[in-house]
Structures are given as C-alpha cells and as structure tokens.
C-alpha cells in the first residue's frame, strides 16, 4: 500500500519505477530535447495542482543526464526562499549556488576544476554571498554617535548583516552575478555541456502578474547567458486574460499539462493504478470508480486509492469494498465543497448542465486554481466529479 502515497517525494517514486512515463505522451522528452537543442530557450509547463508537473520535470532532468551532453539543474525554488517576497535576482542567485556546487563536485568536470580550484572556490563564495548575504565590518565615525558620550571619541567598527537575494529584500543590480555565472558556465562548456535549469515551484505564485514581475529581469539574463530554462507556472498563466498573453509571448513554448479524462477506452488512469499494483487492492469496478471520481487529477487518484485501502484496513477487512470508495469520495468532495458560496455553486451547476464556463472571469479562474473545476482542454471544463457528487441540488438559502 505504501506505493500509493500521494505525498511521497516524486524523485523517489520515479526511482522506484512507479511512474507511467508515457502518461503525457512523453512530454518530458519534448521539453528536455528542445532545451538541449536550443541553448537559451525558455519553456513553461503550465498545469493545475496535482497534475504531475514535478514528475515531468524530474523525468526531463533524468533524460538530459542520460544523454550526457547537458548539465541539468533541478531547483525547487519554493523550498529555498519565500516566494511571496521574491525579488529580481532570486532565480539567478539560486541558480548560481546550484551551478557552482555542481561544477565543483561533478566528476566529469574534476580535471578542469582541479586546475583552478582556488579561483572557482572564491567565485562560489561570491555567489553564496549574493544569495544569502554576508557580514561586513563598517567603520563608525564618532560624530555618528554624538548621543553617546561615554568613552573616548574615536572611530570603531560594527558588524552588519547585508541580506542576499534568497534572504530578501535588497535591490542590488542583477548584473553583479553575471561574471561569476559566466565563469562556472565556461567550465561546463569546456567539456561541451550546456546548462539547463529546471525551476519548479514557481506555479505556487498563483497570481501571474507577480510571476512575470519577478521573473522578467532574471529570464532576460538567462537568455543572454544561453542557459535553457524549463519552469512551471500556474493555470492562471494560461487562462488569466491579459497577463496570460504576455506570458505566452515571453516564452518560446508554453506546454499545458491538462487533466487526463477518465475514459475507460484509453485506460491511462487505470495504468497509473496498475503500475502501483492496484489490482492487488481494488476490484475492476472499484478501480474504475476511483478513476472516475479522481477527475483525472493524478494526486487525487493516488490519494483515493490509498484512502480506500486505509478505510478497509481500519475496519479490519482484507479487501476494499464499494462502500470504502464511496466514503473516501465523499470525504474528498466535502473538502472541495467547503467555503463555496451560493454564486459559486450556481456556476458549478450551470457548468454541469450547460457545459458553459467563462474562463476569463476572476471568480472562475479561482475555481480552476482550487481544482473545483478541471480543464480537459482549453475549451472543455468540468466540475470535479468528487465535488459534483456532494453538491446540494436544492437552491441554497441566502443569508
């Protein structure tokens, strides 16, 4: 049952062979191949929460590594710094730290590094200062301290913290980091390895305006440095009217990782369960039911299967029953339902009956971001089936 863990780190799940690599038609290969072939290219992977973006990026990273002529660097930026106060230079700072560390530790680069170890270590320390800040000593003139009249009137030194880009906020010129980055990149290129940086976690910035404002300057410098980029972005980057357009214009390619329809004919979702030996736990019927109620959201699919097995276990039964599936679907649906007002419920019921959904409205984008509405294509929107199963059908009373 531990193969059904929706919170297990994606890297471990890939290494355990529990991932269907063809689920999105080998999208990771397309992403990685373009990044490899066009140094300086910038691609965006857009998808809803739990759609499998991290898995695709990590598969892409592994593929690039296997090809042997790129140095891929996977960075979950949201684990390194507080994205809510992210500023220009943060992406470059994080990249610099990862790149420097890789260059200094990659066995393939060791002969080159050995020739200039001291210089590269010095450069690495510049990069870490840029990222994390440094302590500096500052001379204090006695006139600055006229309020304090004790002791001799002579200058002295104080130690101050200068913040870095990953410990914001400090407006420093992002050009400061260019030269150290070029130094590391030249070492990698001496052995014909172009650098591809994979930024995960940027999709947490649900507001695409914020995404663009912080990424803009950094992305420009990455392009100049001929470093290819793969980055994630939230669904609002695709559907949020004007900003969505500027994001599309900025990137060379925007890939949409849409939800996978629970269609028994193509069997994609069933293959996800099978890969994790789901048939040992679930009957055909229950597996189909779980696929349907997941709505094709991969994390919900894994979660429902795990939770149904857990229900059976805590009830001291050896196998999952339809009632277990029903119970966990109800739990999931109730979670999605909480906090929805009468207007939102009306929109959802209207979508269900008329298939009509105005994706340019802010309130509707919100429904997409919170996964109450799922996007199967740019024109096919549906209510999450687990939510649909618990929506009260009578007209809600107004307060």
């Amino acid at each position, binding site marked *: 049952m531990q193969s059904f863990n929706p919170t297990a780190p994606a890297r471990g799940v890939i290494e355990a062979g529990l991932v269907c690599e063809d689920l999105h038609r080998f999208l990771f290969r397309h992403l990685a191949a373009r990044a490899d072939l066009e140094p300086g290219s910038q691609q965006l992977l857009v998808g809803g929460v739990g759609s499998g973006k991290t898995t695709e990026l990590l598969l892409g990273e592994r593929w690039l590594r296997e090809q042997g002529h790129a140095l891929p660097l996977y960075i979950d930026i*949201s684990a390194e710094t507080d994205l809510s106060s992210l500023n220009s230079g943060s992406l470059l700072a994080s990249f610099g730290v990862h790149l420097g560390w890789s260059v200094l530790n990659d066995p393939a680069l060791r002969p080159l590094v050995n020739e200039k170890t001291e210089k590269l270590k010095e450069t690495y320390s510049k990069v870490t200062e840029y990222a994390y800040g440094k302590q500096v000593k500052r001379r204090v003139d006695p006139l600055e301290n006229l309020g304090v009249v004790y002791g001799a009137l002579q200058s002295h030194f104080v130690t101050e913290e200068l913040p870095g880009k990953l410990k914001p906020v400090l407006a420093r010129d992002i050009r400061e980091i260019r030269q150290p980055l070029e130094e590391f990149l030249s070492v990698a290129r001496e052995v014909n390895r172009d650098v591809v940086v994979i930024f995960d976690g940027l999709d947490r910035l649900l507001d695409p305006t914020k995404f663009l404002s912080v990424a803009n300057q950094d992305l420009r410098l990455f392009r100049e440095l001929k470093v290819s980029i793969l980055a994630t972005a939230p669904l609002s980057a695709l559907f949020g009217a004007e900003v969505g357009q500027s994001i599309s214009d900025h990137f060379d390619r925007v890939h949409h990782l849409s939800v996978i329809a629970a269609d028994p004919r193509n069997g994609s979702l069933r293959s996800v369960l099978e890969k994790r030996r789901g048939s040992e736990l679930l009957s055909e019927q229950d597996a189909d039911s779980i696929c349907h109620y997941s709505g094709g959201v991969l994390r919900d699919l894994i*979660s*429902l299967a795990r939770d149904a097995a857990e229900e059976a276990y805590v009830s001291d039964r050896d196998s999952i029953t339809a009632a277990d599936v029903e119970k966990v679907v109800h739990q999931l649906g109730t*979670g999605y339902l909480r906090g929805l007002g009468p207007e939102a419920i009306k929109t959802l019921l209207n979508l269900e009956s008329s298939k009509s959904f105005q994706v340019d409205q802010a309130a509707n984008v919100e429904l997409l971001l919170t996964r109450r509405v799922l996007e199967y294509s740019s024109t096919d929107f549906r209510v999450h089936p687990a939510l649909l199963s618990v929506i009260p059908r009578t007209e809600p009373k107004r307060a």
Partner: protein
Amino acid sequence: MLDFESQPFVEIARRLEMRGGHGWIAVLSPPSSRALALDELQTELRSILQVPTRVVPLDTFTFEGLREALQQPNDDAVVLSAGAELTPEKWSRLDIMRSALERIGPVIFWLAPNDVANLTGSAPNIRSLIGASIFIAGPDGGIMTEEERRERLKELVQYFGLSNEEIVRRAESKELPPEPEFVEWLVLLGRGDLV
C-alpha cells in the same frame, strides 16, 4: 450539512503509521476543550508512531522559521496548529511555501472546523497533499465530559491502588512502565507531557 468523517485519535495515529512516512492529515478540533484534545492527540501519536511529537503554532510564522522547525528534525511528528489569526492571506502565504513543509515525518494540521474553507480556497497546494484525509476529532478520541474524566480517574485509582499524585511522581522520575493505562491516566491528569 455535509460533514467529514469522525475518527478517534487512535485511528488517526494508526492511519499515519500505515502510511509509513510523508503522511499529511488534517484534524478538526472540537469547539471546546481544545487544549486537552490536542494534548491527547499528541499522546496517541507518540504512543502509536513511537516518535517524539511537537506542536508548531501557525499564528505567526516566517519562511525561515517554519522551514527550520519542520526540517530540524524532519522525522518526528509535527502538529501544525492553526488559530483564528490564520486569515486567508496567511493561508496563501503558507501555501506558497508548501515545499518547505515537506518532510519524512507526519504533518498533522490541527484546525478549527471553519478553517477548512480557507484551506481549500486559499491553500490549494496544501489541500492537495491532504486530499481526503480531513477528519473530525471523534467522540472516542477522548473528548470526555468532566464527569466522565473524574469517573475514569477514580476507576484507575481503585484498580491500581495508586493515587494521582503518585502516578505523576513516578512518571517524573521515569519509573512508570509504558502501559496504555498509565498513558491514559497521565493524559486525563493533563500531564501528557510526561508520556
């Protein structure tokens, strides 16, 4: 009104044990006796998972502070306790830093019932990891009335022939065997910290 399943703390702890690591769960606290219930939840987690358990309040948090609290160490059980101060804006900030919260040990969100709306509406990334694992602290989860508590304590005193003070003294001097009855006894005395 539709509601979540009610589960005693012992079942919640068993579920986390079954998951074997990286488990995320949300528990909706009872409206009254919140502190006592939290104490009892910790006791069940310690007893079943056999790992230390900590409560990390979410009323004021910073990225650095929360990351350090959850990653050092990263294999014990952490209860993230949300209070009324956790506004939708703060939930959004917390959501952005979800990756910094990911760890080997279990993460338990201790929420007031009305927090679920904020969780779903403002923190979709966190909600996604919790999935369907949202439970109400169940009636068997030890939400006893004061009378029931006194009655149970009387039973324990009579059965073991020891006073409440003696139990606390023995627990403090590490002389108390780790039997479930003694664990329960200490919790009923509000001394779950000695378990």
